[in-house]
């Protein structure tokens, strides 16, 4: 049998599977509903945007993939959702745990105001309808890191519904061909995080740390409007930027502050949706698109070979680069949702409905929060394009790196050079230099003033472009040589900083300036 070949027939995400005798219609599963929170059953024919495709060869049939996402973002708050213990990423095990978090009898949940505000702000930023009344429920399942045996969530009536998230993907080969797509936001709900399990396979036991148990999460459910890994990754990236701009979550995937589960199915265009699988443990931006695309390919291969797709939960194995069925998930989960009996409905107000004489600490005014919303990334980018005449993809690049926008704006303030020149220099030469030295913007030895000065010289044609580039590099090495006190190169030790990065030369500068490292 010839090796099956998977072809992308166009940027619009139609998948073609070319195998021998392809085109037979076996193995299509029955679409199933699910008891998991908030997910709609995929039982209708999908509306796929029809983008011009190559004509499929005889015997081939097109496949279309459908991807929905459930994104959990840890709320940036001092204390947890229902208790007053601290939220912190690194602390001694079980030191940030209150009696409620440990689920000791007699404890009750008390809602954190900041978490509600975070949810409302996120809902407003994503154009959602904010439910004036929302309810809390219990979702039951047994696991050692869930001491209560249930998670408090909002299944029946979440705090925000029916929004949308606009993101950009590049179509075609060049980065400059960007199109804007939209994905529907089904709902946003408040829920508790679980503790952490550390599996000790050697001694056949699991170690439980409840520091994370009870931390507030925003679950953002994205409709299955996406059709491949790249779109999903772009949507997640944009959501990350929005959450960071709002300050509602630091959304750092590496620290587990942003976790993504994907619901993936494939079908032939025009036919009903296929059986969906859920892929969990997508905790890295790098592997998000890969994992989703792998699963799409796996499902297509399976169906083309006459197999069936099971409505199961799978996990992404980073080492093997593939999805594997998860243990401990026998059949469909029945969460036995019930209203949380210890919490009354959550009521939100706006300027028109604020109860008179109410304690301001006890009421949340949606209109007030809307007025105080920070500028969203989309708006920032539009402003950059308008103000400085840069291309849209440049505005994306400026926002994509932490601290780069601020750096750019500081340079602009101090230099007489044209904005377009500044843009080009910052994005190409400066950023390229940082990447080469493996530095973040905050660690840049070149200050905005220094760069502004350099660009002024360039602008006055006092120095050539290549000289300027050299000067940028030399400047950093000059600083470091002065401070090192002239150690010959072969005696300079390579130092590791807390992030685990070894950087020769320039890093020495920083270590000496900042003794704490």
């Amino acid at each position, binding site marked *: 049998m010839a090796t099956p070949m998977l072809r992308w027939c166009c940027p619009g995400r139609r998948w073609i599977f070319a195998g021998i005798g392809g085109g037979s219609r076996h193995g299509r599963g029955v679409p199933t509903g699910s008891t998991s929170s908030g997910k709609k059953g995929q039982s209708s024919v999908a509306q796929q945007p029809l983008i011009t495709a190559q004509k499929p060869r005889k015997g081939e049939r097109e496949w279309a993939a459908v991807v929905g996402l459930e994104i959990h973002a840890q709320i940036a708050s001092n204390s947890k959702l229902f208790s007053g213990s*601290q939220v912190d990423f690194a602390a001694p095990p*079980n030191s940030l745990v209150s009696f409620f978090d440990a689920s000791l009898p007699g404890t009750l949940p008390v809602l954190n105001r900041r978490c509600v505000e975070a949810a409302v702000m996120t809902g407003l930023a994503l154009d959602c309808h904010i439910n004036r009344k929302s309810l809390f429920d219990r979702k039951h399942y047994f696991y050692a890191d869930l001491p209560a045996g249930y998670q408090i969530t909002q299944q029946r009536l979440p705090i925000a519904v029916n929004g949308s998230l606009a993101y950009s993907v590049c179509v075609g080969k060049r980065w400059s061909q960007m199109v804007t797509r939209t994905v529907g936001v089904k709902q946003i709900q408040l829920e508790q995080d679980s503790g952490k399990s550390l599996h000790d396979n050697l001694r056949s036991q699991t170690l439980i740390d409840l520091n994370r148990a009870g931390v507030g999460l925003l679950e953002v459910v994205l409709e299955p409007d996406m059709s491949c890994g790249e779109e999903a990754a772009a949507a997640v990236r944009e959501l990350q930027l929005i959450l960071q701009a709002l300050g509602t979550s630091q959304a750092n995937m590496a620290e587990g502050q942003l976790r993504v589960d994907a619901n993936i199915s494939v079908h032939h265009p025009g036919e009903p949706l296929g059986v969906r699988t859920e892929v969990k443990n997508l905790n890295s931006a790098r592997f998000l698109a890969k994992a989703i695309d792998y699963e799409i390919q796996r499902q297509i291969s399976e169906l083309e070979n006459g197999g069936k797709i099971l409505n199961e939960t799978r996990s992404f194995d980073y080492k093997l680069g593939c999805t594997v069925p998860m243990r401990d998930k026998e059949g469909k989960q029945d969460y036995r949702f019930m209203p949380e009996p210890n919490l009354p409905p959550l009521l939100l107000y706006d300027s028109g409905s604020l109860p008179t004489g109410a304690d301001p600490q006890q009421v949340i005014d949606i209109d007030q929060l809307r007025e105080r919303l920070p500028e969203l990334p989309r708006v920032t980018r539009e402003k950059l394009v308008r103000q400085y005449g840069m291309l849209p993809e440049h505005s994306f690049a400026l926002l994509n790196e932490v601290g780069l926008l601020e750096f750019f704006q500081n340079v602009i303030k101090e230099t007489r050079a044209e904005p377009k020149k500044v843009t080009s220099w910052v994005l190409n030469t400066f950023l390229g230099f940082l990447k080469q030295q493996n530095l973040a913007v905050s660690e840049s030895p070149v200050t905005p003033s220094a760069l502004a000065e350099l660009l002024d010289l360039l602008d006055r044609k006092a120095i050539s472009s290549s000289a300027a580039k050299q000067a940028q590099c030399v400047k950093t090495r000059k600083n470091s040589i002065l401070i090192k006190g002239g150690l010959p190169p072969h005696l300079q030790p390579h130092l590791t900083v807390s992030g685990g990065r070894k950087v020769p030369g320039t890093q020495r500068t920083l270590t000496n300036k900042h003794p704490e490292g």
Partner: protein
Amino acid sequence: MWARAVWLGLRASAGGRRGFPSKAAHQGSRRVTAELIEHLERLALVDFGSQEAVARLEKAIAFADRLRAVDTDGVEPMESVLEDRCLYLRSDNVVEGNCAEELLQNSHRVVEEYFVAPPGNISWPKLDEKEPFSHR
């Protein structure tokens, strides 16, 4: 409102004796099967130790089914007896925690400030692997 609903229910069952049994027959025909018991035991980790316990469950279901006799068309369900209460909002301050030692005392096994649990959930034996339940 709750009292009124109960009163209506009682009236319905008392007054509509002829109508009621047919409803009950329709509901009651769904007996509690062994599969359902196994499913419930797995979900809730309760032990239906005997036939008597299952009979009690069936009676409880039949009792609750009588609620269906009440006509609730157009009536908003009451989700919580707290629905008229105010949900208290707490300020975002750290006031608890730092009691690892106390909490760890509750655990049967502890390793270096971690609670110790078995690796993953212990899977419930399947129906045919278990002893027939009338022998328990």
